[in-house]
């Protein structure tokens, strides 16, 4: 055994000697925090030939040196060559750097070991058989907490050989890999476009197709084109990706916008040199949303698909209890009670309700997926970000409430008025109830749904739809169960006069729902449009009354067509007016500014959220609670009233010098959508507590209590 080992070792030694002996490397110079040497890829150089000689640096743990664009501070490593007559050195080949965050600053750096190859070309008249000395004066800034300029005078003895030189036995492969990994142009198409305070960089092409885009980042060569420390939001596309950069001095500070944006696009699949020109976004560079969150805290869903389906079903169940569903629940109760003692009819209604819920959920999910595929950063509840939808829903709620109040009837033939809903009308009504319940319930992303939906939207459409289906089934389950379990229906009282009273009483939560939607609408559009939608409401109510009058006249055998027509016309006009108001009203541009000083309650003032604001406050060591909210999200409103506006919470905030930031998603906002995605969420509410003196945020539950908030604040402050 020992003999065998010894023979092998001897063989290796002989082989090494035959290959040209020792590795080509110069003496190592230790300048304090960096050990430097020159190493060669080949064991020699041919006359007139070019080989790579690399500066190899071993940087002390915790310290870093700098890339060609050092970022916000620092200085790139420099090499000054002293070469024999007629020899030349080309440009340094910079490997992809790493991001080094220093409070609010971001540097582009190297850590650990780095090799920077440089092409060296020998003079054509170099004599084979001679050995020449290359000298490099290397200057570098090496920083940890403090920065120290260091330098090293390095040398390498390089033999001139006839013919193609052999690779260096030790460094040949190493330098070969560095060169292979170094960012190079790869025929990628790239364009940039300045959109207000966002610089969109769209890149498409071969290696990007289907690549893992998580953590993709653009390192610019120029230090003046972007704000280095700003987040780069990633939007995937079928052919590539779009990064949203924060433009720097050259774009927004008064400098001259460059003709080209050049730098390195680094992804998990590799890094490439990208040269972007000004232009319109490329096809296939967006549309697939942000990459799946990487192990986002709280966003990681144990059990994958099965877990997501289960959570979606539970979420759907819980959705029945959410405040936004209550008015619709009341409708369900009313219609269910109407068939309490006719089991087959009740079952039919249950199935119709189920169908309505499932169809609407899938339609909404399909629309959501389609819109996201179209490139818009939207999340669940997106339908309520459109004032047009809100206006329509508000009028719909009003009409439903008027119907429940008995102003007019739906789904009954005129002869049937007062004779109770026919089976046919009941089925249609149940389907409609299911559809309406979903539309209104959607913004109440119940606690169990958040993770499941976040998971769903990062999956292929089929799986996403599966999750939504589970959600729909969970949502419809209690109602359907009641209609199918024989004993359950018996528990309900016999139909009678009380039903009409119940129905009319339950109309009031519906009026409340209509009012709430009008309030949301006002948040989205402003006072002018508010006036218009109120007028539309009156008009719709008048129309409904006329229609009801016509029904009564027809029942009494009198002329009804004119009144009925006028009623329908009034309702149509009301819808038109509301629609016009919604379309004409632009989202108030001042929302964010106005929001900044909106007090959330006595003594506690919320400031407007932005990623930069969080960074700046963290830099100050402040404790931060971020409230991701929207006017149309009832859970959010309830939490704000119940848990975030009391004097005790304000006191706790004051004691910890904490800041409340509010990210208002009432209107569409890609930055907020991206932030939600970072935590594996696609909807509000989301509550984050950033601890004092920096660090990762803690996610609070979606249903808050005052005690919970105070506890979280105190914990984060200790």
């Amino acid at each position, binding site marked *: 055994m020992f003999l065998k080992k010894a023979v092998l070792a001897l063989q290796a030694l002989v082989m090494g000697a035959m290959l040209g002996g020792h590795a080509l490397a110069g003496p190592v110079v230790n300048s304090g925090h960096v050990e430097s040497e020159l190493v060669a890829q080949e064991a020699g150089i041919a006359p007139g030939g070019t080989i790579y000689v690399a500066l190899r640096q071993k940087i002390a743990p915790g310290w870093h040196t700098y890339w060609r664009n050092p970022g*916000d*501070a*620092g*200085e790139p490593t420099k090499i000054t060559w002293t070469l024999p007559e007629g020899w030349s050195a080309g440009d340094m080949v910079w490997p992809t750097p790493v991001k080094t*965050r*220093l*409070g*609010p*600053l971001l*540097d582009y750096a190297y850590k650990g070991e780095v090799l920077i190859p440089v092409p060296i070309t020998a003079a054509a008249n170099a004599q084979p058989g001679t050995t020449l000395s290359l000298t490099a004066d290397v*200057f570098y*800034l090496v*920083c940890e*907490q*403090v*920065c*120290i*300029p260091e330098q090293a005078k390095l040398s390498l003895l390089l033999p001139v050989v006839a013919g193609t030189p052999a690779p260096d036995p030790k460094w040949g492969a190493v330098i070969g890999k560095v060169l292979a990994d170094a960012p190079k142009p790869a025929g990628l198409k790239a364009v940039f476009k300045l959109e207000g305070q966002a610089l969109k960089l769209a890149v498409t092409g071969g290696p990007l197709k289907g690549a893992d885009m998580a953590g993709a980042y653009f390192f610019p060569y120029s*230090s*003046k084109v972007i704000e280095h420390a700003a987040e780069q939001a990633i939007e995937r596309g079928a052919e590539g990706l779009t990064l949203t950069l924060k433009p720097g*001095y050259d774009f927004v*500070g*008064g*400098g001259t916008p460059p003709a080209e944006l050049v730098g390195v696009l680094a992804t998990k699949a590799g890094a490439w040199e990208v040269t972007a020109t000004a232009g319109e976004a490329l096809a296939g560079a967006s549309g697939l949303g942000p990459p799946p969150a990487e192990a986002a805290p709280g966003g990681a869903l144990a059990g994958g698909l099965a877990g997501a389906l289960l959570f979606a079903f539970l979420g759907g169940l819980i959705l029945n209890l959410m405040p936004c569903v209550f008015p619709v629940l009341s409708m369900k109760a009313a219609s269910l009670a109407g068939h309490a003692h006719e089991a087959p009819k009740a079952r039919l209604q249950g199935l119709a309700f189920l169908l309505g819920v499932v169809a609407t959920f899938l339609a909404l999910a399909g629309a959501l997926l389609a819109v996201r595929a179209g490139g818009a950063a939207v999340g669940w509840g997106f339908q309520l970000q459109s004032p047009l939808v809100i206006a329509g829903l508000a009028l719909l709620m009003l009409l439903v409430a008027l119907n429940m109040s008995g102003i007019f009837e739906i789904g009954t033939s005129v002869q049937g008025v007062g004779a109770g809903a026919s089976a046919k009308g009941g089925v249609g009504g149940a389907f409609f109830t299911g559809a309406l319940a979903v539309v209104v319930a959607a913004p109440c992303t119940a606690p169990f749904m958040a993770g499941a939906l976040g998971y769903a939207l990062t999956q292929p459409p089929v799986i996403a739809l599966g999750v939504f289906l589970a959600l729909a089934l969970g949502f419809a389950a209690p109602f359907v169960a009641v209609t199918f379990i024989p004993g359950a229906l018996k528990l309900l009282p016999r139909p009678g006069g009380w039903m009409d009273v119940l129905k009319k009483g339950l109309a009031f939560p519906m009026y409340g729902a209509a009012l709430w939607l009008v309030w949301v609408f006002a948040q989205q559009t402003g006072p002018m449009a508010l006036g218009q939608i109120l007028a539309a409401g009156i008009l719709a109510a008048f129309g409904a009354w006329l229609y009801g009058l016509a029904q009564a006249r027809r029942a009494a055998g009198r002329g009804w067509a004119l009144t009925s027509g006028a009623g329908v016309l009034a309702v149509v006009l009301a819808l038109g007016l509301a629609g016009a108001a919604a379309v004409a009203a632009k989202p108030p541009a001042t929302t964010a500014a106005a929001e900044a000083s909106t007090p959330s309650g006595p003594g506690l003032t919320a400031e407007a959220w932005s990623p930069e604001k969080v960074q*700046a406050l*963290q*830099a*100050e*060591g402040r404790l931060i609670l971020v409230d991701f909210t929207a006017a149309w999200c009832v859970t959010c409103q309830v939490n704000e009233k119940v848990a975030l506006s009391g004097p005790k919470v304000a006191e706790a905030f004051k004691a910890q010098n904490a800041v409340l930031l509010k990210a208002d998603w009432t209107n569409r906002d890609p930055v907020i959508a991206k932030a939600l995605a970072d935590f594996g969420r696609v909807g509000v509410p989301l509550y984050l507590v950033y601890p004092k*003196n*920096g660090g990762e945020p803690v996610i609070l539950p979606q249903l808050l209590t005052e005690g919970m908030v105070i506890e979280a604040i105190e914990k984060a402050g200790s």
Partner: protein
Amino acid sequence: MSITRRLVAAALPLAAFVPAVAHARPAPDFTAIDADGKTRSLSEFRGKTVVLEWTNEGCPYVRKHYSGNMQGLQQAARADGVVWLTIASSAPGKQGHFADGAAAKAWMNARGAKPTALLLDADNKVATLYKAKTTPHMFVIDKTGAVVYEGAIDDKPTNKVEDIQGSKNLVAAALGDLKAGRKVATPFVTPYGCSVKYKDA
């Protein structure tokens, strides 16, 4: 209100379209304690040209310029009526942090530094407000309170004293432009140096 004043007032928004004005951004006001323990604010110097200089006495780039270059600039600027505020933003425990005004004054005396005031910004408030990135990081604020120059002190981004010779001092150039009533020719050059030692860095 006279008709001329009304006209001027009406035309004010148009000023935003004049390129020279469009580039200047208002210098945010701040207050800080100086080395003498006095509270100073930017607004008290309204009507004067102000230079802000971010410093960190341990930083090699700062030391490069405190070989005489920075002191010379300070003296020349103040002789022209310019206010010079040196700001030390290193957080406690970080390089360049001054424990108190006395420590800061001892450093100023040792170096012969002659700013109008040295401001202690250990809580990074002023640095955060100005997004100060490096030491040195220079700002020139004109008499109307607009930032007319921001960035590097000169065009040789190194820490070698010998590079000062033959470099173009961008702060001196901006002050020269202001004095001559010209638009500042170079309003921005990427700042270079050590990172400002923020407290969470």
